[in-house]
C-alpha cells in the first residue's frame, strides 16, 4: 500500500520520538510507535545505519485511499556497536532496540600484580 509504486498515494512520514540510554554494555533505544504490531515493524542495519520503519496503523480508520502514514527514523551507528547482536522488542506501543557494544569497547578491570 505504501511501497511507493502507487503514485497516487501520499505517504506522510512521522518521525517517532526517541529515548536513548547508554548502559555499561549497550545502548538502549526506545521509539514511540503506538498501535502497531511487531510483524509490521521493520528494523535493519545497512551501511552502519539503523533504519526503523513501519506503516502507521490506521486504528481509527482515518486513512483515505489517497493518504497513508508511516513511521521512519534512521540512526547512524558509532564504531563501538556490535551489529550482529542487535535485539528488538515491541511492547505497549514502544519499540525497544538494544545495541550491544563490541567486546573490545567494554570497560576492563586490570588486575595489578
Amino acid at each position, binding site marked *: 500500500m505504501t511501497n511507493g509504486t502507487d503514485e497516487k498515494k501520499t505517504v506522510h*512520514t*512521522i*518521525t*517517532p*520520538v*526517541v*529515548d*536513548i*540510554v*547508554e*548502559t*555499561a554494555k549497550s*545502548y538502549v533505544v*526506545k521509539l*514511540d*510507535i*503506538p*498501535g*502497531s*504490531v511487531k510483524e509490521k515493524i521493520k528494523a535493519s542495519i545497512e551501511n552502519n*545505519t539503523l533504519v526503523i520503519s513501519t506503516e502507521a*496503523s490506521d*486504528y*481509527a*480508520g*482515518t486513512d483515505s485511499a489517497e493518504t497513508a502514514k508511516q513511521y521512519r*527514523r*534512521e*540512526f*547512524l*551507528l*558509532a*564504531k563501538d*556497536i556490535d551489529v550482529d547482536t542487535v535485539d528488538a522488542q*515491541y*511492547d*505497549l*506501543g*514502544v519499540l525497544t532496540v538494544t545495541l550491544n557494544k563490541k567486546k573490545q569497547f567494554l570497560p576492563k578491570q586490570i588486575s595489578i600484580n
Partner: protein
Amino acid sequence: MVVRFQPITNIFDEIDSIFNPVAVPFPAIRWTNRDRRFADISVKESGEQVHVYAELPGVAKEDVNVNINEGTLVISAERKQPELKENEQWIRNEVNYGKIERTVQLPYPADVEKVSATHEQGILHIVLPKHENAKPKQISIR
C-alpha cells in the same frame, strides 16, 4: 546527560547521529519534540456509538484512568520515567514523562453504564454507546 532539541517544522530524510555526534556538524532537527502533556486523540462516530482513540505509548494499563459523565470524557494517565541505574546515562530524551490529561467533549451524551475501554500497544480505545436520548427517534404518523 539529557539533550533537548528545539521544535522546528518539517525536515525530512535527516539522519540522526546520536551515537557519533562528531560525524555530523549540525544537530539533528526534530519536529516531534513537542512538549506534550496531551495525548493525540481521534474521535469517530459510528452508528450508535462514539469511538475515542488516544495514543498513550509506554503507559501501563493500570496507569490509565477514564472518567465520564454524560457529555464529557476525561482521560488521565501517567507515563513513568524509567529510573536509571548506576553507570547508565541518558544519550537522548525526547519522550515526555509524567502526567497526561485530555478532556473530550462528546458529540452526543453517552450511556455511561455501557462504556467499554481497551488499552493495547499504546492505544486506548473507548467505545461509548449513545444515550437513548441522543438516538434518532422515529415518529409514527397517524
